[in-house]
């Protein structure tokens, strides 16, 4: 048994060495597939994280109707504060709101004067607790929040909903793309390795004719495939880390995502292990399919 293992390992090493360029091509194919898939996956999960951050920020503005006096407003504030979904409430009085607006938009003063006292309503700025942010609880909460004192409830739900729907679409697209990528990579690796089995068909055929089993012939190729996958995955991991560091730096300059823990180039252990696993599987399946193809047609 140990002798067989020795023969298999020697054969694998020899085949890797003697078909260095084809093995490099196979590793390159795997690296490219993982890079493409990984980049898409990364973009998607970054977006996903961002949406989660925004969702967590769901935030309602409840505008008081004109004629609700400050005492009444204070009472409503207390009621809202008592609601279990509410994380925090800020009371913005009409005076505060006007001051804020005037500070932000200097030219607005004359317009506000024109519109009169009630132009800028007082409001409650409500932040929800994260666990109440699901679709249903949100609309439920809005219903219970509704009362005569409020003129209008304004929340960014539509925006979040649209983004979530878009993300769902993107995920479906990603799954389709991933499947396609895996198939293409297996096909390409299989064909590259078919060239290897073709180049070595005299030897492989003779091995089969003198009584080698499929396992004995295939094992070195499976090892070869695993090595290709490993190297391909390492290349992809390197490239993805670089890509991530560069792109995320850029993106964060453009769109601050809050305290996003995304900015460094490391991919995370599970991603690295995932890429290694998928890479090795691609190599092994690709090489395995090439050997099987050879075995079926050899005498």
């Amino acid at each position, binding site marked *: 048994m140990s*002798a*067989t293992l020795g023969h298999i390992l020697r054969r694998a090493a020899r085949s890797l060495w003697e078909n260095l360029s084809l093995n490099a091509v196979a590793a390159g194919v795997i690296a490219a597939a993982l890079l493409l898939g990984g980049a898409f996956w990364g973009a998607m999960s970054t977006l996903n994280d961002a949406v989660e951050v925004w969702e967590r920020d769901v935030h309602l503005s409840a505008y008081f109707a004109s004629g609700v006096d400050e005492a009444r407003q204070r009472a409503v504030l207390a009621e809202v504060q008592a609601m279990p979904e509410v994380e925090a409430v800020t009371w913005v009085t009409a005076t505060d709101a006007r001051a804020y607006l005037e500070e932000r938009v200097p030219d607005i003063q004359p317009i506000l004067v024109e519109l009169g006292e009630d132009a800028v309503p007082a409001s409650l700025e409500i932040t929800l607790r994260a666990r109440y942010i699901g679709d249903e609880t949100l609309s439920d909460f809005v219903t219970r929040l509704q009362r005569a004192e409020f003129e209008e409830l304004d929340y960014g739900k539509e925006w979040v909903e649209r983004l979530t729907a878009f993300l769902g679409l993107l995920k479906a697209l990603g799954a389709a793309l991933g499947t396609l990528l895996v198939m293409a990579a297996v096909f390409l690796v299989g064909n590259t390795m078919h060239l290897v089995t073709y180049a070595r068909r005299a030897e492989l055929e003779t*091995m089969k004719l003198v*009584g080698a*089993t499929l396992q004995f012939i295939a094992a070195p190729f499976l090892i070869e495939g695993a090595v290709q996958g490993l190297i391909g995955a390492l290349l992809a991991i390197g490239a993805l880390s670089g890509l991530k560091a560069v792109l995320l730096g850029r993106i964060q300059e453009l769109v601050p995502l809050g305290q996003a823990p995304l900015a460094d180039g490391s991919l995370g252990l599970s991603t690295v292990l995932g890429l290694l696993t998928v890479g090795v599987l691609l190599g092994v399946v690709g090489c395995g399919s090439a050997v099987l193809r050879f075995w079926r047609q050899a005498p």
Partner: protein
Amino acid sequence: MIRLYHVSKSYGSAQVLHDVTFRLSKGEFAYLTGASGAGKSTLLKLLYGAEAPTSGKLLVGGVDASKLGPARLPLLRRNLGVIFQDFKLIPNRTVFDNVGLALEVIGAERREISRRVNAVLNVVGLGGKGERRPLDLSGGEQQRVAIARAIVNDPAVLLADEPTGNLDGAMAVEVMEILLSINLRGTTVLIATHDIGLMERFPHRRLRLNAGRMSE
């Protein structure tokens, strides 16, 4: 040791073997003869499982080669030594590695391989040429490498396809003497050949194929 019952073989619409029946006992030495294209190589291919018969039954060492699945065919082949018409030597491996291949695939230890390969190279008169590559050897030497690989694991049956086909007279006699000596050690030997002179010089049982039909 070898039995064929009403074996026929067609490639597509071309029938190559017609209702062939014969048996070869353990330890026998026989020629399979006939003109080029008579079906000699095809019959040997059926015996080592490279082709399946279209109809009929065929037993080698008691097993039906045509019914062996891919898992058990290798086991049959390990008990057969085959000298192929085109040698099937691996050009970029040494003579030693080529012969050792038959032992490597059954998982023999390296030391064991080394011992047996060197012994068998001496038997075929290639002692000291183990590190050569097949293409650096003469036709006769290549033929003997092919013989060495076929006999290195003491097969019960030795099949040889035109083993003297491309050798001059003296070399052919030498090869025949090797094959006969292997037979003397108990191996059943079947040699496909159309070399009448050789068969007359070393007379043995002849199985004649004529356009795929057998007669003795």
